[in-house]
């Protein structure tokens, strides 16, 4: 093993930040809080770069074992960190974008109450996210997995005075729990069949097993992992929490719900690549789930008016793309998209935050308009993100998305076509958002102003990354770990997808800049479809009616009042009442009358005589 790189410092720095801010932040000055929060993450980023330079090409996985977390019998779980090329990418993304967003947040959150609390949570998130990425076994990964979920919960519910924030946080956590349910079961199956949770050991023994004996189990494991990933990465049918999660402060949306945490599912599937490749059915399912999600979320995104909601559905949709990438075997492409998406989606959110900040917490695009001139830096940077996500060559989104779509075409052409159509929609709704926000006349009542430099600088950096990110050699870098894609660069296919993007932008321009009456006309014309999509297919409502409500009502009326209080306690109390009734009956026999008592004595005597003289005596 190579010399120790002190990997533990990477997550522990933000954790220290969390501790300091959490314990002392309340009474500390903002400057101090800023210094601790930003400083710890930036230091962590620096440490990451130092570690990665130290490790160089990372031909083999670099593992550092610290201590046994718990052990039972032959089974033990260690706190072990590992770095390979995949981890390296993720580490850079997480700490890098994390640093930017921390910096941004110092400006964005400047006037919020609970400032220290926000940063403490954010640091805690970094800690868990880094654990997730660094983990060398499934359980430690799960620690990070759950931890980021927790921070997500805390940060979504940051404005805890508002009911919707609390609701959204809870929803996020619980839906994630459903995913974790799958994740846990997958782990259980792994332990049952492989006896360990260490990545290396599991993958190795999975690969050497006889496929006919273990295929079913591995498929099951992978499907369960998929459930977990679907929860975390907001895939159908568990995507519902992510749009609601926008209740949190915007930097949170950028960091957690766009750039890092939600991609954990993708990371996890990529990490488990060795298993997934042994389970083609599971892989297929991943692809289908991905494309369905991509398409489905994109349609919803078309009609949202809340700028953050639009981006949220966009995130869901983009995550779908990543899943498609994984599902069709283009793991590197999936991760590549993770990276580029982290750039441009973080940028989109931060930009949106900047807009919201400028417009005094207005998020409805119908109250924006013409902001291009009022907040030019924001506009400029957002435009970079726009072109990136719309797949305009040669910007970052184009590269990663095309890598995925090409791989998909090689695999299942229909996925490609749906993907292309979705790309068109993506271009449309992002353009729509851009047009509604920055073009036309200002329709709001606030006095928009440009954000402070602590916010704009990260925007600018991200903008650059969004533009150029596509040229990072991530595919090549990851190839040894995640395998090569064998899709040939078919220019026709590329052209089609680019065209779809262009069409989307064009259509949006027509509808929202050139002739703004069209949307309303269409809405009245296709009222049913419009309502359906506008209300997000009523998925939340269906879940409510079909799952949440029955469980709640059933628990209350059937289980608690009916079974618990009624049946069990009723039976228990019934025994009591019955006993008392018997007692009452006996009391009546005991009426105080001597002659009755004598009768009982005589009758008892008769019974006794009968019993004792007849039993056994008379045959």
């Amino acid at each position, binding site marked *: 093993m190579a010399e120790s790189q002190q990997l533990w410092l990477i997550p522990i720095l933000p954790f220290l930040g969390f501790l300091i801010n959490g314990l002392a932040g309340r009474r500390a000055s903002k400057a101090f809080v800023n210094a601790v929060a930003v400083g710890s993450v930036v230091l962590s980023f620096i440490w990451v770069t130092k570690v990665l330079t130290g490790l160089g090409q990372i031909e083999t996985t670099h593992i550092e074992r610290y201590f046994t977390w718990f052990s039972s019998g032959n089974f033990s779980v260690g706190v072990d960190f590992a770095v390979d090329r995949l981890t390296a990418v993720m580490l850079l993304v997480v700490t890098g974008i994390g640093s930017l967003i921390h910096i941004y947040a110092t400006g964005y959150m400047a006037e919020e109450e609970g400032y220290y609390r926000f940063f403490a949570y954010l640091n805690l998130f970094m800690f868990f996210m880094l654990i997730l990425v660094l983990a060398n076994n499934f359980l430690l990964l799960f620690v990070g997995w759950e931890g980021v979920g927790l921070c997500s919960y805390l940060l979504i519910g940051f404005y805890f005075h508002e009911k919707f924030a609390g609701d959204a946080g809870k929803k996020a956590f619980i839906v994630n729990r459903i995913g974790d349910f799958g994740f846990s079961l997958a782990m259980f199956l792994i332990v049952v069949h492989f006896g360990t949770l260490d990545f290396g050991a599991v993958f190795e023994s999975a690969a050497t097993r006889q496929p006919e004996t273990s295929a079913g189990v591995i498929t099951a494991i992978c499907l369960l992992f998929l459930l977990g990933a679907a929860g975390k990465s907001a895939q159908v049918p568990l995507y519902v929490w992510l749009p609601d999660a926008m209740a949190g402060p915007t930097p949170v949306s950028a960091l957690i719900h766009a750039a890092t945490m939600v991609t954990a599912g993708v990371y996890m599937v990529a990490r488990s690549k060795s298993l997934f490749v042994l389970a083609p059915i599971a892989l297929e399912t991943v692809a289908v789930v991905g494309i369905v999600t991509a398409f489905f979320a994109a349609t919803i995104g078309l009609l949202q008016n809340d700028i953050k909601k639009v981006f949220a559905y966009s995130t869901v949709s983009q995550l779908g793309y990543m899943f498609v990438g994984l599902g069709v075997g283009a793991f590197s492409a999936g991760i590549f998209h993770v990276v580029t998406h982290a750039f441009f989606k973080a940028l989109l959110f931060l930009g949106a935050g900047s807009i919201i900040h400028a417009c005094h917490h207005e998020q409805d695009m119908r109250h924006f308009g013409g902001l291009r001139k009022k907040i030019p830096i924001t506009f400029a940077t957002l435009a970079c993100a726009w072109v990136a996500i719309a797949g305009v060559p040669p910007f970052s989104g184009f590269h990663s998305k095309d890598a995925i779509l090409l791989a998909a075409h090689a695999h299942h052409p229909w996925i490609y076509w749906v993907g292309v159509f979705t790309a068109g929609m993506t271009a449309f709704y992002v353009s729509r958002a851009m047009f509604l926000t920055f073009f036309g006349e200002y329709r709001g009542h606030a006095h928009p102003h440009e954000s402070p430099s602590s916010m704009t600088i990260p925007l600018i950096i991200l903008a650059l990354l969004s533009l150029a990110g596509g040229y990072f050699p991530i595919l090549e870098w990851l190839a040894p770990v995640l395998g090569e894609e064998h899709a040939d660069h078919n220019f026709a296919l590329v052209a089609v997808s680019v065209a779809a993007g262009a069409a989307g932008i064009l259509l949006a321009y027509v509808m929202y800049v050139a002739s703004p009456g069209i949307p309303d006309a269409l809405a009245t014309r296709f009222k049913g479809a419009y309502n359906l999509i506008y209300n997000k297919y009523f998925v939340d409502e269906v879940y409510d009616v079909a799952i949440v409500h029955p469980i709640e009502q059933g628990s209350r009326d059937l289980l608690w009042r009916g079974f618990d209080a009624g049946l069990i306690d009723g039976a228990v109390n019934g025994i009591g009442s019955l006993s008392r009734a018997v007692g009452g009956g006996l009391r009546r*026999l005991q*009426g105080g*009358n001597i*002659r*009755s008592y*004598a*009768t*009982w004595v*005589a*009758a008892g*005597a*008769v019974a006794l*005589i*009968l019993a004792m*003289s007849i039993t056994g*005596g*008379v045959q």
Partner: protein
Amino acid sequence: MSVILFLLFAVIAVAAAVNLVVQRHPITSALSLIAVMGSLAVLYLLLGAEFIAATQIIVYAGAIMVLFLFVIMLLNAGAERQVPGRSLASKLLGIPVFVLFLGIVCFLIQRFYASADSAVEFGSFTGGGPREVGMALFTRYLLPFEITSVLILVAILGAVVLARKELD
């Protein structure tokens, strides 16, 4: 002869006992009881228990029953009132219990006692005279005999405690 005597006095005894049970007035019942005791004394004689027969008349019929009569008269007890009794249990179970009890006892005697049964021959047993009784009482049964004095002491004490006039 002994058959006739037995039957005669047995019938008297049963009849008197029935009378005791069916009569409403305690005096009548008391007199019936005396009749039972008298006829039993005769049967004792038939069984060769002379001393007991005598005691039966003197102590039982004489002393105890007189005490009863005294009390009945002292309290001026009249006939029971003609109201329905309050004991449901005795009303429902009384007769069945009586019949069953008697039935079982008779059955058992007929069925099982027959093997040990013997004919009563008057005069064949003469161990029931005062001498024999006295011998047994003061040798083997000395302790119980002495102890019964405690019993009687208790009875006296009880009567005194319960029936005396308040001193104060």
